[in-house]
């Protein structure tokens, strides 16, 4: 056994000891033994339990320090967070995209959560944290992928490459000052992006009286989108939107297995908001048409007189595992960049500029 392997084994043993101490019996971390990511340490910070009426509030604040024990650079990781005794109808995950962790390096993942649970629950850990997946720089993937994290992380990585390429080309064409202007414009877009408070409930929990009305979508066409949106509508009742159905056609030469539609709503004053996305698992052969529908109800947090709805294809996954995402010029042409959230990488680069300045941003771009 090499020295590094011995150190890794020692670290894992210490972590296992830390994770099974009585104070942390509420949370259990389970990674597969052959995982390319290992837990090196866990900081439990201010984890505490407080009674509230007939319930108990459990605040879990932990930072896991993980090591890349595999042979390739890690680009992203997703941890599955399960609290089945408390919330059997749901689960959660914490993902960290836009990583650049070389073999042997460590990185932190913070999990801050609160559970409100009845006083009487069966013994055993309340929360289980498991590895759902790790994405490497060659887009290979390891993990059970119960949350489809491979898809999310691959799409984020492709967006990251698109955005780094964009900022590097701005730097090459317009110099540091041009890059500064571009990143300031990005920060301004992030600050001014109109937001909408939304609740999500599964189908059947419609809370408004009356059947509401069905409103047709107006679709925006991005020139190179492999999926064409033909027609669609959603049911609006009070502050709720539900039962979105859309007919689509695969206009590419490859079969499609997944796509997402960005859903924009417009109020009486002409203000537009990104209400959410409509994802669809499908199998669409080249030229085939299909129909998708949503399962959940979106409930807006404030009264919103919706006058119109728009949609456009924001992500496509082909059967061969490759992705299509909209290009930055096409998003800018349709003025969608002011509504869409920036990619995780753009968010990270803008934050790096905000914290450490232009030189740090240039150095970071040059690392790729």
């Amino acid at each position, binding site marked *: 056994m090499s020295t590094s392997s011995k150190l890794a084994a020692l670290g894992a043993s210490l972590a296992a000891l830390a994770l099974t101490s009585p104070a942390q019996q509420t949370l259990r971390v389970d990674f597969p033994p052959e995982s390319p990511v290992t837990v090196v340490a866990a900081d439990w910070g201010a984890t505490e339990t407080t009674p*509230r*009426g*007939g*319930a108990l509030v459990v605040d879990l604040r932990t*930072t896991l320090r993980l090591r890349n024990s595999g042979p390739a650079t890690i680009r992203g990781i997703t941890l599955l*967070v399960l*609290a089945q005794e*408390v*919330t*059997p*109808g*749901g*689960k*959660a*995950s*914490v*993902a*960290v995209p836009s990583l650049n962790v070389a073999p042997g390096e460590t*990185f*932190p*993942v*913070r*999990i*801050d*959560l*609160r*559970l*409100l649970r*009845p006083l009487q629950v069966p013994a055993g850990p309340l929360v289980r944290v498991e590895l759902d997946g790790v994405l490497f720089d060659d887009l290979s993937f390891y993990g059970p992928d119960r*949350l489809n994290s491979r898809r999310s992380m691959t799409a984020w990585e492709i967006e990251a490459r698109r955005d780094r390429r964009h900022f590097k080309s701005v730097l090459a064409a317009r110099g540091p000052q041009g890059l500064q202007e571009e990143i300031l414009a990005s920060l301004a877009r*992030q*600050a001014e992006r109109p*937001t909408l*408070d*939304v*609740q*999500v*409930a*599964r189908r*059947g*929990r419609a*809370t408004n009286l009356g059947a509401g009305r069905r409103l047709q979508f107006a679709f925006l066409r991005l020139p190179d989108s492999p999926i064409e949106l033909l027609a669609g509508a959603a049911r609006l009742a009070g502050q709720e939107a539900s039962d*979105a159905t859309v007919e689509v056609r695969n206009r590419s030469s490859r079969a499609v297995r997944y796509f997402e539609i960005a*859903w924009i709503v417009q109020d009486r004053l002409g203000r537009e908001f*990104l*209400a*959410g*996305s409509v*994802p669809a698992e499908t199998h669409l052969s080249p030229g085939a048409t299909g129909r998708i529908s*949503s*399962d*959940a109800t*979106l409930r807006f947090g*404030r009264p919103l007189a919706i006058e119109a709805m728009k949609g456009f294809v924001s992500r496509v996954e082909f059967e061969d595992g490759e992705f299509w995402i909209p290009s930055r010029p096409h998003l800018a042409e349709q003025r969608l960049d002011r509504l869409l*959230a*920036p990619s*995780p990488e753009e*968010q*990270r680069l803008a*934050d790096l500029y905000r914290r450490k300045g232009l030189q740090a941003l240039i150095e970071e771009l040059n690392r790729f």
Partner: protein
Amino acid sequence: MKHPDIASLALLAGGELPFWTRWRAERHVRTCPECQKEVEAFRRRRDWFRDAAGELPAGLNWSRLEAEMRANIQLGLEAGECVGAARPRRIRLSWRVAAALASIAVVIVGGWWLHLPHPRTEARGGAVLEATAEGIELKEPHGALTLFHSAATPVVVSASAQGAMAARFVDEETGLVTVNNVYVE
């Protein structure tokens, strides 16, 4: 900048302000971090009270409570009979005055009713996902799970029509982009 008074913020948090007052208050709160905090605090307290009120005292005997209430009402009626000998003289109203008073009453009651926040009918008590200022919360009938994004700003919140919500932010402590996702099944 003139802030709404604290009572208005409390009523706003509970969704109990009349339309125009609510519109003005919401417009102000959207741009005022101070008032946003107040409203969030009221909402948290309201949730806390709702949770606490959901718990009834152990061993509550409804039958005995009902019997006591009936006895108290009966006692009140009998006491009223004892002191109710002197009746006031009846005042006769003309039909025109009575009609005018009735119209005014209809207008007042109608206006009051229209300003009431009308409760929605909950078809089913299923799980709901909600984004708050602190994190993404999954509420179920017997428990709740919240994934926090702490003091991170800006936070990009997105909803999926297949039943998921995500909050994306740069973690102030680790400096890494983190995506908290909560799914409802």
